[in-house]
């Protein structure tokens, strides 16, 4: 029976009572409670069901290491699964529900898994894969899907806000216990910029709970004084409720600040992800108590000894009236003393050591509490609640000597330093056999950019378990790190801590020492993943010798536990099974974050519109207002078509095509990349970048050009205009502007840095509007200002001047096969020019058109599209573009590669047109052509594939382009394309130029 005590509780405010909801029931707690302490205060000891076996589980710990007491928190858009009761601060109307239990935590249907635990041994999932396929698909997978998993995923988008915070400091100190405070004091007084993080709401760590004294007074006094001094230093920033989450290369670290979890109605972001760069990092993260491994060690009521006294002292919450303490060290006795001091019963202390003669055991004996040495817990008894423990000799196999009724069993298996942050970035550990713990090895730290260690560990995290050494270590490490960060440390600090001296621990890895298989199957090493002693021993028997393999096979220490509670106990059992020493078995890899952080904090502000900013052309808003059906094109949004209210998308596309071919179409082509290449060596440079000869291009003329990678593959295409003898304007694809500009810069900066060439990406400086169709010239003549006649502005020429009063450059280029002008105007005049065209064009039947119309018209003309006809394995020669590859140039990017035998192979798949034999059919995009033969590996032999395919409203039948083996030599032949629904579409190989093959229409 757990309950609230009438007095005490250093962290709760009894004047401020709060109501909260637990599984639909209203309960009462106090400000300062955690959800865990408030639940215990209301006698809620059964919190949830376990992951695999759905065993009843209660609260085990009092900090982030809690493996069991995970709940669903909040509702609707604020719902979050797997929140730890131990790290959740209580607030008014908090709403929490049990997990992994249906219909209720007290009566859980899936509890039958416990009975089946024999069929869920280590490696169960892997073993199910070995069954026949049907068994996995129809038997195991559906069952596992329903039964497994931790919590339930939220169903609505997260309603909260999150943000990033950046900090650059001399010293980042993680952990606000006395070691962290001492180090901060040292560095702060020296003038270093210090950021001190504490994951809880409170400073001082365990020292006040464990009764340490500093300078002869209670530790809390020193903590208060130190905090006040640090708070007054402008160079020191203190952040509570902020966890040091991860340590990364070169002094980079992340912090996780929980701003409003404890006050959900407060304004501002919920979480902050601190992105910190520090010269030195001190990890003063403390230690975590280990459970003991005995049968039934997961029954609600079995708790860590330190947690029991945390609840007593910090929250005035009794975890049970009648306590049994099981321990292998002196520190556990502090819990017996605390229980007794609170007026509660300590039925017995079970100490596995042969003798317990330290000061703390003697104090306990003096209170009349029976201390049994050399004894072990044979088993904890009970189901949903602990009822009793049976006692046996530690040395034996578990013959029961005595049964002791109790409702709480406090266990202490010793302490493990929290070495996660030290290890994240490669810091190594060594095994301290005396203290039975892995400690940071200061000779093998994580190394920074300058080759020196940049992380230090102080206090309990460094293996110091008594207050005196913890404080001294805090000062020492603080001094060392201060000097390394480039500051003078100043006079030494003389503060001294004292605590009751302790006798050494005796490592106990299972209780009793000779426990048999039955007990092993009820002894949990990893509560969160339901891994038992029997699982690790089975893994060892099945040949898993590496700790990393055993971890994956058994799931020991996986997920959010990250080895906090399970690691050392599991390693020790594995070492014992393998007849090896613990340090030889080693630890698994500690990975960041130390404790789960919210996905929201990782995303920060990068969600919705801010996830990736959209590039908008100067005409964007007009398009949005006029039926533009947007599709993403690289970072841009372009209209697929302009849909009218009475038509479908495909009807809109057809209308736009027919109108453009008959009257005038208007296309916003502003997204095309525009790069200026200028300088005395510009021609020479252009000749290297393009496969064509660009240096001979006459001023005032345009030329279609191709760019290849050094591997010979086609990378981008576009029209180049020569503005003057030193200056070229290169058009790139819409998606290619940044990439091609970077490509040019890379060559200029890293290969031909002595060439006098300058490049500028001016894509956003211009709006580019294509006026397309047989009546295009009429419109421009009506707008006036420039002679756009065929004589003055012939095909593939351009002119600078003014059109309709707006400064313009008109290019005579065509991607549709029609008479076409692309008019570039300053971006700021783009909308005005567009409006002018729309208005003046009305009498000629002008309509705007979108990208799908553009695509169909270019396919009707057999023009390739980068990304459709190319995929990074296609060379220009495959596409019938040999005419655009200079034979005169000594070199260009890709030239050497295209001379390789495979590139010259006559059997390469090459571009052809494809016309379905049946006019009503359209070949699916990406379809493969087959020749009816079967390859050695049993698949159909493929001889080509479709790269672009459309219905052509101009021609009234389906058209396609594709790459076909020996295609150009097979004109008129018919080939077959199987479709996904099992049909076959037959098509005739033809010229890819379906429309106006002579090019008469564009050249008028």
């Amino acid at each position, binding site marked *: 029976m757990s309950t609230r005590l009438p007095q005490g509780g250093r962290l709760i405010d009894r004047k401020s009572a709060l109501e909260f909801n637990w599984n639909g029931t209203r309960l009462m707690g106090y400000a300062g409670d955690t959800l865990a302490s408030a639940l215990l205060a209301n006698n809620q000891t059964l919190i949830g069901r376990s992951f695999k076996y759905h065993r009843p589980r209660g609260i085990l710990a009092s900090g982030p290491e809690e493996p069991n007491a995970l709940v669903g928190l909040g509702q609707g858009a604020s719902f979050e699964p797997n929140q730890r009761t131990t790290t959740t601060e209580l607030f008014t109307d908090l709403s929490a529900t049990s997990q992994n239990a249906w219909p209720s935590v007290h009566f859980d249907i899936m509890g039958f898994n416990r009975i089946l635990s024999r069929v869920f041994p280590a490696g169960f999932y892997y073993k199910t894969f070995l069954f026949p396929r049907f068994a996995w698909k129809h038997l195991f997978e559906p069952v596992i899907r329903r039964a497994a998993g931790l919590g339930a995923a939220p169903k609505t988008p997260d309603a909260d806000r999150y943000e990033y915070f950046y900090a650059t400091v001399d010293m980042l100190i993680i952990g606000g216990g006395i070691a962290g405070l001492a180090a901060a004091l040292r560095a702060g007084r020296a003038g270093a910029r210090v950021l001190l993080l504490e994951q809880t709401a409170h400073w001082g760590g365990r020292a006040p709970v464990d009764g340490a004294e500093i300078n002869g007074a209670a530790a809390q006094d020193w903590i208060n004084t130190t905090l006040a001094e640090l708070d007054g230093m402008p160079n020191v920033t203190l952040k509570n409720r902020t966890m040091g989450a991860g340590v990364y*290369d070169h*002094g980079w670290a992340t912090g996780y600040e929980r701003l409003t979890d404890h006050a959900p109605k407060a304004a501002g972001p919920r979480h902050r992800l601190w992105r910190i760069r520090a010269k030195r990092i001190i990890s003063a993260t403390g230690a975590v108590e280990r459970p003991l491994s005995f049968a039934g060690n997961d029954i609600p009521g079995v708790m860590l000894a330190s947690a029991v006294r945390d609840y007593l002292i910090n929250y005035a919450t009794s975890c049970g009236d009648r306590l049994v303490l099981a321990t292998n060290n002196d520190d556990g006795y502090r819990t017996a003393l605390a229980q007794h001091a609170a007026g509660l019963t300590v039925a017995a202390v079970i100490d596995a050591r042969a003798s317990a003669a330290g000061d703390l055991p003697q104090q306990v004996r003096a209170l009349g509490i029976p201390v049994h040495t050399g004894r072990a817990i044979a088993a904890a008894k009970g189901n949903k609640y602990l009822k009793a423990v049976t006692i046996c000799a530690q040395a034996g196999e578990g013959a029961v000597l005595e049964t002791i009724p109790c409702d709480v069993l406090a266990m202490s298996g010793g302490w493990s330093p929290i070495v996660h942050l030290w290890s994240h970035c490669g810091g190594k550990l060594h095994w301290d056999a005396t203290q039975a713990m892995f400690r940071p090895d200061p000779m093998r730290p994580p190394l920074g950019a300058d*080759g020196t260690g940049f992380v230090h560990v102080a206090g309990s995290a460094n293996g110091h378990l008594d207050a005196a050494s913890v404080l001294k270590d805090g000062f020492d490490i603080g001094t060392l790190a201060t000097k390394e960060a480039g500051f003078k440390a100043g006079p030494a600090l003389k503060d001294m801590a004292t605590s009751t001296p302790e006798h050494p621990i005796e490592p106990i890895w299972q209780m009793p020492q000779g426990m048999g298989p039955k007990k092993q199957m009820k002894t949990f090493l990893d509560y969160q993943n339901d891994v038992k002693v029997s699982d690790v021993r089975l893994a060892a028997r099945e040949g898993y010798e590496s700790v990393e393999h055993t971890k994956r096979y058994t799931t020991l220490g996986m997920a959010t536990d990250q080895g906090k509670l399970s690691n050392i106990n599991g390693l020790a059992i594995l070492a014992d099974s393998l007849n090896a020493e613990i340090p030889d078995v080693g630890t698994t890899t500690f990975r960041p974050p130390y404790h789960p952080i919210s996905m929201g904090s990782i995303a920060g502000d990068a969600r919705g519109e801010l996830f990736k900013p959209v590039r908008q052309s100067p005409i964007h808003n007009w398009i949005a207002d006029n039926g533009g059906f947007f599709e993403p094109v690289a970072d841009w949004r372009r209209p697929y078509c302009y849909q009218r209210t009475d038509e479908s998308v495909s009807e809109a596309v057809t209308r736009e095509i027919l109108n453009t071919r008959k009257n005038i179409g208007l296309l916003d082509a502003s997204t095309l990349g525009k790069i200026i290449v200028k300088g005395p060596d510009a021609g020479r440079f252009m000749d290297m970048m393009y496969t064509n000869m660009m240096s001979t291009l006459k001023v005032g003329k345009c030329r279609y050009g191709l760019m290849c990678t050094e591997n010979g593959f086609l990378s981008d295409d576009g029209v180049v205009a020569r503005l003057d003898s030193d200056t070229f304007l290169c058009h790139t694809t819409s998606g290619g502007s940044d990439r091609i500009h970077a490509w040019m810069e890379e060559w200029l900066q890293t290969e031909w840095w002595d060439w006098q060439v300058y490049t500028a990406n001016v894509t956003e400086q211009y709006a580019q509007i294509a006026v397309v169709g047989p009546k295009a010239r009429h419109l421009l003549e009506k707008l006036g200002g420039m002679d756009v006649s065929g004589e003055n502005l012939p095909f593939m020429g351009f002119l600078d001047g003014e059109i309709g009063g707006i400064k313009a450059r008109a290019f005579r280029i065509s991607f549709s096969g029609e008479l076409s002008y692309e008019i570039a105007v300053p971006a700021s005049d783009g909308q005005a020019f567009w409006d002018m065209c729309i208005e003046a064009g009305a009498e000629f039947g002008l309509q705007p058109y979108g990208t799908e119309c553009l695509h169909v018209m270019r396919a009707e003309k057999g023009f390739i599209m980068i990304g459709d006809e190319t995929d990074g394995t296609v060379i220009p020669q495959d596409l019938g573009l040999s005419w655009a590859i200079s034979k005169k140039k000594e070199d260009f990017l890709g030239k050497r590669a295209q001379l390789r035998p495979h590139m010259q192979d006559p059997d390469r798949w090459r571009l052809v047109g494809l016309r379905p034999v049946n006019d009503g059919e359209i070949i699916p995009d990406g379809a493969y052509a087959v020749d009816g033969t079967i390859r050695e590996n049993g698949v159909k032999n493929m001889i080509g594939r479709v790269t672009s395919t459309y219905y052509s409203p101009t021609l009234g039948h389906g058209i396609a382009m594709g790459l076909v083996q020996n295609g150009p030599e097979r004109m008129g032949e018919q080939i077959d394309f199987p479709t996904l629904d099992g049909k076959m579409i037959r098509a005739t190989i033809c010229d890819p130029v379906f429309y106006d093959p002579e090019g008469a229409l564009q050249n008028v």
Partner: protein
Amino acid sequence: MLHLTCPNCGQMVDETDLHAGGQAHITRHGAGASDADFEDYLFMRKNPKGVHFERWRHVYGCGKWFHAARCTTTLQVFGTYSAQTLTPPKPLITKIKKLRPEWEGFEK
């Protein structure tokens, strides 16, 4: 997250502001190159455990390419320098030799 000094603008830069460009000091073999030279240029890259010279671009900054000398195992940065050079600067070579006596030296 690596922290490199951009020699062009002098700033210490986070890795997320940079673009990695692979091995530095590669000789381009273009038209007319032998098969072996071309293969070497296009495909063969060093993958040393230790001292390595590599290219980076300060892409979310000044936009300039630079070179860095770095240890691939400890991530120690020996120095960064201009990309407009055919070999690493001599003082840098001397510095690395001092720090890593077992290093066989710069080879193109």
